[in-house]
């Protein structure tokens, strides 16, 4: 059976991190630091989410002189909705797992 899109643990981690500050624009390195994802995992995820319309991006001038502009990311309304949905189901799964362990 094919796996549903955005079902990986890394996608959940990324969406959960984006959900923490849904309005603010953040750059790739900052997201990588926060989530612990390596750039090799992070960029394909950002590309996928952007393609699916779950993430918006823009360029901004750097604060530091002589440094190039940075690419910033922020979840779209659809992305936020999906992130909330996934976080809710993850919380539910965690509660169910805890109650199963307690019952056993």
């Amino acid at each position, binding site marked *: 059976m094919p796996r549903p899109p955005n079902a990986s643990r890394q996608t959940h981690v990324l969406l959960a991190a984006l959900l923490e500050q849904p309005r603010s624009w953040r*750059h790739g390195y900052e997201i990588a630091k926060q989530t612990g994802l390596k750039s090799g995992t992070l*960029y*394909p995820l950002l590309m996928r989410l952007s393609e699916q319309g779950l993430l918006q991006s823009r360029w901004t001038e750097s604060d530091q002189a002589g440094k190039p502009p940075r*690419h910033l990311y922020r979840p779209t309304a659809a992305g936020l909705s999906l992130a909330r949905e996934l976080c809710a189901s993850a919380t539910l799964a965690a509660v169910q797992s805890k109650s199963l362990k307690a019952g056993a």
Partner: protein
Amino acid sequence: MNRLAWHRLLAQKLLRHAVALLPRNQSSWADAMRAEIQHIDDDREALSWALGSFRACLTERLRVLQPHISAHTLGALWIVVFVISSAYNMSIALAARLGYQRTTSALGWWMRDFQYDRFAHFADSIPIGLFLLMGLAVLLFAAALKLNLRSRPAAFATFCCALGASLAAWLYQLGIPAYLQAMSPPHLWRIGICFALTVSVLGALRFLAATQNSSVQR
């Protein structure tokens, strides 16, 4: 040059090659990766970031290739095999010709019954023109690979030229008596089978591509 600067330099070079792998319509992501590394102050971390970005670009390229797996991916893999084998053949023959016994023996360690003395005798009889032909084949294979990764139509023609140069080099070798003495008959058969297989695979790929194009036009 200190160690940290070396890390930074390698990271930048790696990223420059990595972004070349990405399809043109995703060039903004390539720019994003290149820009981001300039904002990482730690050189080691920059190198780690560049390695990850390289993996990301490669993943993305492979994902884009997936729908064309019958033509592009197989073609690219096939060319990789030829680039490696042609470069290897040229290296071992050149090392023997220049009298680097250790290098030649190291390159031939995996071959059963590899004897430096016999091989050096063969390598000595190789004319310079043949080395140039082998070098040309390697360059053409590499160019074909690059064109194939960029989905350029010239990739197939370049690969055919490379294959022609490689075949010419092989036929040229057959004219050298020392080659026939150095190589056992089963080895010659294997090379012949490899060429026949290549022609069949390429023919099949070409046929599939033509069939796909005609069905799209319809």
